[in-house]
């Protein structure tokens, strides 16, 4: 039994566990050589509840999916993972960074829950805790990437961020241009990031650094770990994609639109 809502869980035969992770409610039942998973989402994207119980009945309107295995292991691994597409976050209010200034913005994004079972453990399901809207991120409607969209308050203090099943990313933005920089939207390449747990239980991804200068090719990179203010961290899950992929520079550097304020 894990001390957190994630980890490896021991299931007795025909037992059921129930998770409430923000707006996601999840039922997992162990059968013989089979796992049944049912889930549903509430309509509140800001739900911060985290709850774990045993033996909660599956409501009639939730139709579970059956996952069959050749041998019946009794362990289920549930891990928080990053999103499977980049997240485009737009500040709720315009954020402007004056010339030659820097700022660290903290942004929270919904997590994905990954289920693995069998011996050895095989991943069989990946469910988002919130069904985020899709959005298009690109120069035009032909070249670009399909992303998830979210609004952020672009906090300058991580303490004010919403808790719950979310992962926080610190983005250090440095405006190296002569003109003020208006941050209209920021694409976080979450599939290339990992999830870390801080001592206070909060989940973090690696920090990202963006240097904006339209005259020079924009430089953007993912740091090796969460920011210093996260404190001591332990890695919970790895990235979905190779972090060295070229996509990152494109995603982050194209993310910021410089507008003279």
């Amino acid at each position: 039994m894990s001390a957190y809502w994630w980890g490896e869980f021991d299931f007795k035969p025909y037992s059921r566990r129930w998770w409430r992770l923000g707006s996601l409610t999840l039922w997992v039942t162990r059968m013989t050589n089979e796992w049944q998973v049912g889930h549903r989402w509430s309509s509140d994207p800001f739900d911060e509840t985290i709850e774990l119980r045993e033996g909660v009945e599956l409501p009639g309107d939730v139709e579970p999916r059956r996952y069959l295995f050749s041998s019946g292991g009794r362990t289920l691994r549930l891990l928080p993972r990053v999103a499977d597409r980049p997240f485009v976050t737009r500040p709720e209010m315009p954020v402007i960074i004056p010339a030659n200034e820097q700022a660290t913005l903290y942004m929270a994004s919904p997590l994905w829950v990954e289920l693995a079972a069998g011996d050895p453990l095989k991943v069989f399901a990946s469910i988002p805790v919130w069904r985020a809207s899709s959005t298009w991120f690109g120069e035009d409607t032909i070249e670009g990437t399909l992303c998830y969209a979210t609004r952020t308050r672009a906090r300058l203090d991580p303490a004010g961020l919403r808790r719950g099943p979310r992962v926080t990313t610190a983005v250090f933005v440095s405006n190296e241009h002569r003109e003020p920089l208006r941050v209209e939207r920021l694409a976080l390449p979450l599939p290339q990031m990992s999830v870390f747990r801080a001592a206070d239980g909060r989940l973090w991804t690696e920090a990202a650094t963006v240097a904006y200068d339209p005259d020079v090719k924009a430089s953007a990179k993912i740091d090796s770990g969460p920011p210093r203010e996260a404190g001591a961290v332990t890695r919970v899950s790895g990235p979905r994609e190779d972090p060295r992929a070229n996509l990152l520079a494109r995603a982050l550097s194209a993310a910021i639109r410089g507008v003279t304020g």
Partner: protein
Amino acid sequence: MIAATLIGKTDWLAELLAKEPDDIAVIALRALLIVVVGLVLGRLLGSLAGRVAARRGSAQGQMLTRRFVFYGVMGVAVLMVLDTLGVELGVLLGAAGILTVALGFASQTSASNLISGLFLLGERPFSVGDVIQIGGRTGAVLSVDLLSVKLRTFDNLFVRVPNETLIKSEIVNLTRNPIRRIDIDLRLAYGEDLDKVRTILRELAEDDPDVLEEPEPVVWVDRLGDSAIHVRFLVWASNRQGFYDVRSRVHELVARALQEHRIAVGYQRVEVEGGDAASSVVAAEVVARPPV
């Protein structure tokens, strides 16, 4: 020329038959060897060229390159066999020239399709698996061949479109771009609160996770019709996964939302006047539900 070839042909046959049986066996063996080597070499070079083409292009390009190289090598092999048999190639090629002209006239359509196929390959307006619309037909491309393109329509019909037709007509590739717009045309009654309609539609787009936030959904008044205000609601969705499901769902949600908020739809009104000069004018109003 043909007569000369025929004479040449008889001479060649007579010459060959006049040889010793042993010599004939040697010639036959040599011809067989050329054919076998030609076949092996054709296959080898064909697959090699195909592999090079595959690295640079599509599956159909690879197939075509392989075939061209194979038939080219086989053509050379046949010529070599004829040479071994003592056939005068110069005469034969002359005859072949005339034959080509004759064949060219006879197989004009095939040749045109073949060349159109090559142009299509160069231009690549679609590839296998894409959904295209041509001449009122919509279907997924099964294969792009030398003479034609094969489609499977959504009602599971097999359609063969000649390459020449494809070159001449307008092709719409429905799946090439990653995102696509859903256009919903509404006819609202005069007197409806357009701001309210705009808010309802915007909220509807925001609530559906498959409707893209960017490009932003647009609600615009298209024109003021005779009986209704024509409003267009334009939203975007991914063209990769379940586009038609999203389109159908958004249409349904719009219909429901309008019904729920009692937004009146503009009906077509036709005034019919009748009666004679003596009686008063009779006016009737015909109300027709617009087609959805």
